[in-house]
């Protein structure tokens, strides 16, 4: 016998201003199976929850319907309340009379009728609910961090210091990421390398960190607490145990005209190379695409000069398996490039800036390398085309960013501040030079950031011009920058020696493949989506996978570090439990009628279904059916929809429940029609 309690929430005015909650409660009390119904101003408040708890005890309720907001908001709240009163939490359901009713309707009478119908539907469902027990799964107390930039480094160090073994995977030959390329950092102008490299060393030396550089995550399976990860260790062609990092090979390598990625093409490197002097690990790697030995079978100079016999041309990619309980995604960013060819047809290049054909039109990271003491010019500002010191430098903000026509609507956030820094550092190095900044708005929000850009203008004399640049072209060895100063309303033309573009921050190219592999959601730009924009900013849409840094959105260093530590602490919380409880709302196979076509097995996005053999007493296999692993199943229902014989049901959303819900609406409609 159903003894259901219905609790109608006013949500202050949110529901009660449109829906007559008192009447909803009164009519609900007369529905079949309902023993008790009442309404209250804030059902989620402490007295509201007490109301539910005492009604459960007093009326011996065996089902609860809370007519209030979306279950996304408070299902957990009310299920906990029901549990505290001794009821199985899965006997408590919510009827959404706020988002689905009061917020979207203004006819009071009809909205009240609809609210009653929504309650009626849920009562029919709860009458068919049965107690469910959470699925318990064990936890592997290890974590994976993908990406060895500052966010990944911070997350790895925090978790490692918290006593968890961390696997850090970095696709480049060294960790450090973009931060290692920077000269000085805003707003304090402390040297980037000086604050980063000690952390890199700490990673390398930490007993709890297992570092895979020049490696990529190939495959991820499993689920929260129990991920299985395959890492591809790309062939370095150098035996890391034998190599002592003397660097003789990189000096003797005859193939030396390869654009240096670390200097963003502003210098050349050899085919066997160490990405930068402070690299971790500080050992070389052979770039097989450019190595003479790999191209022609000849050369082998590095092998001859190597005193420790560390060169290994036959080395193969190696696949290693790691089991972890939590994953932090910190894959970082790349810079949009203004060229004609774009990674997808949503983006467009900059024809007005020559699609990147002028060597003295460079991006922000290239300028960082010119500023950097470890850069190609040793920290002198010399322009790429002829090595002369530029006397007029133009900085252009929002190149790509906030530019709908080019395909990116968002703000890249850090550019305004780094442009001020670039101009400032340029003026420090070339005091008689001029720095012009074309900007749309100056958005330097952050602790002491605004003071910083004011200083650039007031003390260092940067000239800020509010307006876009319409064209850049070359004339007599200069770059003519045509733009407008919209504040004074005049056209501006600057004869520049160097132009620095603050190009948009975009996710790493093709990173969506990894996100698909991880099963986490990402937006139209391929930035990872957080689980909740305010309350769960470092969690991905998938349990056990956290996010840190610029893979989520453009971020500066302090924000990336803060997010990394937050992600690490979320992961540590997860890994601190001996076992995890998962929602039991999972698929279940009716073995009696399953015909074993295994369409569900192939369609299951979580790979939760396997073949099960049904045997007789003699141990002979009679037939095969599908079986769902409840600790892997995400309850998405894909299997239910492909099953011809209707042999799979989703707990909490069984056919019987859905059918009763639909029927209650149809019955009601036929009453109205009569």
């Amino acid at each position, binding site marked *: 016998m159903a003894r259901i309690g219905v609790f109608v929430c006013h949500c202050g005015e949110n529901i009660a201003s449109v829906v007559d909650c008192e009447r909803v409660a009164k009519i609900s009390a007369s529905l079949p199976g309902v023993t008790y119904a009442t309404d209250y101003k804030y059902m989620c408040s402490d007295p509201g929850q007490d109301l539910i708890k005492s009604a459960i005890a007093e009326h011996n309720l065996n089902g609860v319907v809370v007519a209030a907001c979306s279950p996304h908001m408070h299902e957990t709240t009310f299920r906990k309340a029901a549990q505290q009163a001794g009821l199985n939490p899965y006997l408590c359901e919510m009827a959404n009379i706020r988002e689905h009713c009061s917020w979207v309707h203004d006819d009071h009478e009809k909205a009240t009728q609809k609210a009653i119908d929504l309650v009626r539907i849920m009562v029919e469902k709860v009458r068919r609910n049965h107690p469910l027990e959470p699925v318990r799964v064990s936890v592997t107390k290890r974590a994976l961090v993908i990406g060895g930039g500052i966010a990944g480094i911070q997350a790895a160090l925090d978790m490692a210091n918290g006593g968890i073994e961390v696997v850090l995977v970095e696709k480049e030959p060294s960790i450090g990421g973009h931060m290692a390329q920077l000269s000085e950092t805003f707003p304090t102008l402390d040297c980037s390398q000086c604050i980063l490299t000690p952390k890199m060393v700490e990673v390398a030396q930490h007993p709890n960190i297992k570092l895979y550089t020049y490696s990529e995550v190939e495959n991820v399976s499993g689920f929260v607490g129990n991920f299985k990860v395959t890492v591809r260790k790309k062939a370095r062609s150098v035996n890391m145990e034998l190599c002592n990092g003397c660097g003789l090979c990189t000096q003797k390598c005859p193939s030396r005209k390869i654009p240096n990625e670390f200097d963003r093409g502003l210098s050349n490197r050899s085919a066997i190379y160490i990405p930068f002097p402070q690299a971790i690990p500080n050992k070389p790697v052979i770039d097989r695409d450019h190595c003479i030995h790999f191209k022609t079978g000849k050369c082998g100079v590095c092998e001859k000069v190597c005193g420790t016999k560390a060169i290994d041309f036959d080395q193969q990619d190696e696949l290693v398996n790691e089991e972890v309980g939590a994953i932090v995604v910190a894959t970082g960013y790349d810079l949009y490039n203004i060229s004609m060819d774009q990674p997808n047809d949503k983006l467009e290049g900059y024809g007005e800036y020559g699609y990147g054909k002028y060597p003295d039109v460079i991006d922000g990271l290239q300028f960082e390398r010119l500023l950097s003491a470890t850069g190609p010019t040793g920290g002198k500002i010399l322009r790429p085309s002829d090595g002369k010191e530029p006397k007029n430098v133009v900085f252009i903000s929002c190149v790509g960013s906030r530019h709908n026509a080019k395909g990116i609507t968002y703000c890249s956030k850090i550019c305004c501040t780094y442009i001020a820094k670039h101009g400032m550092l340029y003026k420090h190095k070339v005091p008689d030079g001029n720095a012009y900044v074309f900007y749309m708005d100056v958005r330097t929000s952050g602790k002491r950031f605004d003071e910083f850009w004011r200083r650039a203008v007031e003390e260092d004399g940067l000239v800020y011009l509010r307006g876009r640049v319409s064209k850049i072209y070359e004339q007599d060895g200069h770059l003519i920058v045509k733009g407008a100063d919209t504040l004074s309303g005049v056209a501006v033309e600057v004869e520049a020696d160097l132009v620095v573009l603050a190009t948009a921050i975009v996710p790493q190219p093709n990173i969506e493949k990894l996100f698909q592999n991880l099963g986490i959601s990402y937006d139209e730009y391929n930035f990872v989506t957080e689980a909740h924009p305010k309350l769960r900013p470092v969690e991905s849409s998938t349990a056990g996978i956290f996010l840190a840094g610029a893979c989520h959105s453009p971020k500066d260093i302090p924000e990336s570090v803060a997010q990394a530590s937050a992600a690490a602490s979320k992961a540590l919380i997860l890994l601190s439990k001996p076992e995890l409880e998962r929602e039991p709302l999972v698929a279940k196979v009716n073995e009696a009628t399953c015909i074993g076509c295994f*369409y569900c097995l192939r369609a299951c996005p979580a790979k939760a279904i396997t073949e099960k053999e049904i045997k007789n007493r003699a141990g002979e296999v009679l037939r095969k059916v599908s079986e769902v692993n409840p600790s892997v199943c995400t309850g998405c229902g894909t299997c239910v929809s492909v099953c011809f014989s209707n042999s799979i049901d989703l707990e909490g959303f069984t*056919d019987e429940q859905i059918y009763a819900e639909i029927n209650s609406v149809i019955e009601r409609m036929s009453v109205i029609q009569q």
Partner: protein
Amino acid sequence: MNDERTLKIREIAKELLSKGEIAVFIGYGKGTCNGKARPIFVRTPEEADELIFDSTCSNNLVTYLKFPAVRDEGVVGIVVKGCDAKALVGLIRESQLMREQVRIVAVTCEGVVADDGQLQLRCQYCDVANPTFYDFLVGSPVEDQKPRDFSGLLEKYETMSVEERWEFWQSQFEKCIRCYACRQACPLCYCTRCIVEKNQPQWIETSSHLRGNFAWNIIRAFHLAGRCAGCGACEDACPVDIPLMLLNYKLEKEIWDYFHYRVDLDPESVPPFTTFKTDDRGEFIL
């Protein structure tokens, strides 16, 4: 009329049976009604002389393979036309049959005739006149492979207004007596407990009433979407002449348009409903 194919089939059946490679051979024999061939089960080499093949061999023998009682006899030898082979491959693809459980005698086919002597509708769209999935191939190659383009057939119905179409199908489904002959004849309707027999809850009404008839016939067709071999067995079996193949062809067309998938003779091909792709077309989702 003993054509070359008949003699060859007999020869193969005899050899398989006498060597003990198969327990039973399913083929066609002379019928007793309108001169039309009927399915026969041959268990000894002597009986193999009863086998024939001609243009009246319309039935899809693969239907028998869905029954455990037949499979339990042992390895089965079977005569298939191209369309039947699609159904057989479907059973393998859907784990109902293992390849080694059958010895397949495929025949090239220029088309078979219905009871009235006319070429079957399905043969006008046949793209498997020369089957490619077999142990033995019988008959000389047929040149005429036809495109599976149903637009001419379907145009009449697709251009109807919703009301007209509703009325058309109402007049068809009204006739349905819920004998489930369509289901029994279909080689791919193999569930041991069909959804129509599930009553907790009872999604499909079982009485021969228009409402339940609609649900049944539409769901039957939907469950065959992306799986139907196009053998026409359902329509041939229907005692009240409901044009079931119209539904099957329409769905085949839709599956092709949406997913670019067509049932073929490759057991490894991946039907669209068995995949989960994040980049699937989803314009019907608001």
